[in-house]
C-alpha cells in the first residue's frame, strides 16, 4: 500500500505553478509529514493525493494502481480537514457513521460495531448523542479522527488538523494522533506548517518551499543534515544563525569579520555562509575593546536563556542559548565564538558541509 508520487506538478492557467515536479514514496504504515510555510503548495499536494484537486502533470500511484483519474471515493482513503468538516445537523455518532452509511456496502450491525469502536478509541463514547456545536474544539477534533478511524481505509490524510486548537490542546492531540496511528498501523500523510509537529511525529518529513521539494528525510536527517539554508532555518527554535564567512586556511575560517574559528573539514570555497545553531554559540562577557558583539535583549525560559546580540559587523543579529544562570543583560559587551559543529552553505544556499565531519564531531 505504498503511495508513490512521480514528477507531480500542479499549475493553474499555465503560468501559475503551485507545485513543481514532486517525487516521493510514502511507505505503508508510516507517518509522513508534509511541512512548509503557508502558500508552499502542501495542502494542494494533499488534495491531489485525495483526488479533490486534479493533477496537471505526473502520476500518483496508490498500492500499485495509477489513481490520477480516479474519483476520491475510489481511492480507499480517508481525510481529516482543518475545519473538521463535521455535519452540524448530525450527532457525533451519525457523523462518524456518515461514510459507512453513504457507501451502503456495510451491514447495519457492522456499522454500529465500527462506529462504537472508533468512538471508544478517541474517548467520545459518552458524547455520542451530542451535536457538534455542543462540543469543545478538542472534542470536535476527536470526532473527525473517529470518522477516519471508523473507515476501513488504510491511508489517512490530515490537513493541518491541529491548527484550530489552543497550544496546550495541540500537544495533547498530537500525542493522541501519534498513538492512534501506531496502534492502527495507518499510513498517515499529514500536512502542517508547524515544524515542531513535523519533528515530533514524523517517520519521514517532506519539506516544501516555493512549490519545490527541498528535502525528504527522517527528522534527524533533516535537522542534522539540512539540504539547504531554507531547511536549516525552518527547523529549530530560535532558528539557526546564518553568517557570512571566509576561509583563512584549511583549519580556520573567519565568521562575519568578527571571530575566527577552527574547523575540522576541508572547505571547498573561499566565501560562503556558515550556519550555527543557537546552542552551538558560546558567549563571554568581555570589555569593550575585545568584544565583537553587544547584547540586545535576553529572554528567560527557565532552564535556559536566549541571548539576542548584535554583531559588530554587517548589522547582523544572532541568537544564542545559554545556561539560565549565565548573567547577561542588555548593552553588555560580549565575545561570541562557536563550537566546531557548524553547517556550511555555498552562495546558492546549498549545504556543502562534509558529512563525516558532523557525524564524527
Amino acid at each position, binding site marked *: 500500500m505504498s503511495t508513490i508520487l512521480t514528477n507531480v506538478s500542479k499549475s493553474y492557467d499555465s503560468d501559475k505553478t503551485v507545485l513543481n515536479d514532486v517525487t516521493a514514496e510514502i511507505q505503508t504504515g508510516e507517518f509522513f509529514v508534509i511541512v512548509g510555510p503557508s502558500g508552499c503548495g502542501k495542502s494542494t499536494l494533499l488534495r491531489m493525493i485525495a483526488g*479533490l484537486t486534479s493533477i496537471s502533470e505526473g502520476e500518483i500511484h496508490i498500492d500499485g494502481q495509477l489513481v490520477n483519474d480516479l474519483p476520491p471515493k475510489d481511492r480507499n482513503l480517508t481525510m481529516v480537514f482543518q475545519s473538521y468538516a463535521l455535519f452540524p445537523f448530525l450527532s457525533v455518532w451519525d457523523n462518524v457513521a456518515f461514510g459507512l452509511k453513504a457507501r451502503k456496502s456495510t451491514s447495519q450491525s457492522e456499522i454500529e460495531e465500527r462506529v462504537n469502536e472508533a468512538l471508544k478509541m478517541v474517548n467520545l463514547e459518552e458524547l455520542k448523542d451530542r451535536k457538534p456545536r455542543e462540543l469543545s474544539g478538542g472534542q470536535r477534533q476527536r470526532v473527525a479522527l473517529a470518522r477516519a478511524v471508523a473507515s476501513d481505509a488504510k491511508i489517512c490524510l490530515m490537513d493541518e488538523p491541529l491548527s484550530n486548537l489552543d497550544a496546550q490542546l495541540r500537544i495533547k492531540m498530537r500525542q493522541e494522533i501519534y498513538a492512534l496511528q501506531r496502534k492502527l498501523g495507518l499510513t498517515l500523510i499529514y500536512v502542517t506548517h508547524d515544524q515542531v509537529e513535523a519533528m515530533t511525529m514524523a517517520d519521514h518529513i517532506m519539506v516544501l518551499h516555493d512549490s519545490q521539494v527541498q528535502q525528504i528525510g527522517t527528522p534527524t536527517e533533516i535537522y542534522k543534515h539540512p539540504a539547504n539554508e531554507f531547511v536549516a532555518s525552518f527547523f529549530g527554535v530560535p532558528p539557526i544563525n546564518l553568517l557570512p564567512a571566509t576561509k583563512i586556511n584549511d583549519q580556520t575560517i573567519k565568521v562575519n569579520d568578527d571571530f575566527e574559528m577552527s574547523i575540522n573539514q576541508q572547505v571547498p570555497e573561499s566565501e560562503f555562509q556558515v550556519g550555527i545553531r543557537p546552542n552551538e554559540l558560546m558567549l563571554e562577557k568581555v570589555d569593550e575593546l575585545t568584544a565583537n558583539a553587544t547584547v540586545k535583549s535576553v529572554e528567560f525560559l527557565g532552564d535556559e536563556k536566549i541571548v539576542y546580540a548584535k554583531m559588530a559587523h554587517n548589522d547582523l543579529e544572532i541568537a544564542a542559548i545559554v545556561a539560565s544562570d549565565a548573567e547577561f543583560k542588555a548593552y553588555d559587551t560580549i565575545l561570541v565564538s562557536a563550537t566546531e559543529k557548524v553547517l556550511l552553505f555555498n552562495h546558492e544556499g546549498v549545504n556543502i558541509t562534509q558529512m563525516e565531519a558532523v557525524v564524527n564531531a
Partner: protein
Amino acid sequence: MLKTSTTDVVPEKNVQAKQRHGFRLTAKDKYFASIFLGPSILILGLFVFYPMFKTLYISMFLTNTLGKTTVYVGFQNYAKLITSPDFISSMWVTFIYVLAVTVLTIALGLLLANLSSQKLPGISIFRTLYSVTMGVSVAVAAIFWLFIFNPSTGFFALLSNWLNLPVVNWLTSPTNAMWAVIITTVWMHLGFTFLILLGAIESVPSTLYEAADVEGASPRYQFFHITIPMISPTLFFVSTITIIDAFKSFGLIDLITKGGPTNATNMLVYRIYKDAFYSGNYAKSSAEAIILTVIIAFFTLLQFKFLEKKVNY
C-alpha cells in the same frame, strides 16, 4: 417576485444585542423617540391597527349596502360562513392552490438551484436566465400566460393543433383554470425562490462535500444528506413566504380567471373583494377578512418562532 409584504420576516437575532445599546434614560431620548417613531406609529395605527379592529367590529354586525353597521349579531356571520358550501368550497380551492404553488415552487426552485450550483463553465448565464422572472410584474405575467392559454389563438392551442392533439380549454374548465393560475403563480415566484435557495446552497461549506467525496457518498446521497439538511432553515423560510404570498393572491386571479369558471378559482382574497365591493355585503366580507388574518398570522408566527431559533440543528 419581490414584495414588500408585511410578512417577509427577518429573524429576530440576538435580543441581547439590543441591550448593548441601552443608554441612560434621559428626557432627551424621549423627545427624540417621539420624533423618530411618531410618523410610523401614526401611519401604522391608521392603516393597519385601526382597520383591523374595525374589520373585526364590522364582522360582528349586519351591514347595509353603504357599509353601515346595523344589528349586532356576534359570531353569526362566522357561523354562516363555515356552514356555507360556497365558502367551504372557496377555502378548499384556496388550500389546494396554496399547497400546489408551494410544493411546485420549492421543488422546481430546488432543482434549478442545485443544478446551477455546479461548477461548470458558463453556469452564471443559466443563473441569470433562471432568475429572470423576478423582474416580471403580476400584470405582465398574466398577459404572457393568457396568450399562451388562449383557446383560439394561444400558444398551447397552436401547439395542440400542430401535434394533432385535442385543444385543452385552459380557462373554461374548472380544473384546468386552476392549473392555469397555479402555473402562472409558480412561474412568477420561481426566480425569487431560485435565487434564495441558490444563495443557501452556495453557503454550505465546500469541505462538507469534500469530506463526503472522500467517504464515498454519491452526488444523490450528498444532496439528500448534506444539501437538504444544511439549507433546511432557508427551505422553511421560503416555504412560509410562499404560503403567505399564495394565501394573499389576488392580482393573478383577477387578471386570469376572475375567480371562475363557476367559482373554481374563487380564492379567499378574491372573495373578500367581491363580497364587499361587488355585492356590498361588508359584514360577510369582514368575517372572511378576519379568517384570512388568522391564517396569515398563524404562518407568520410560525416563521417568527422558527427564526428565533435561527437554525434547526
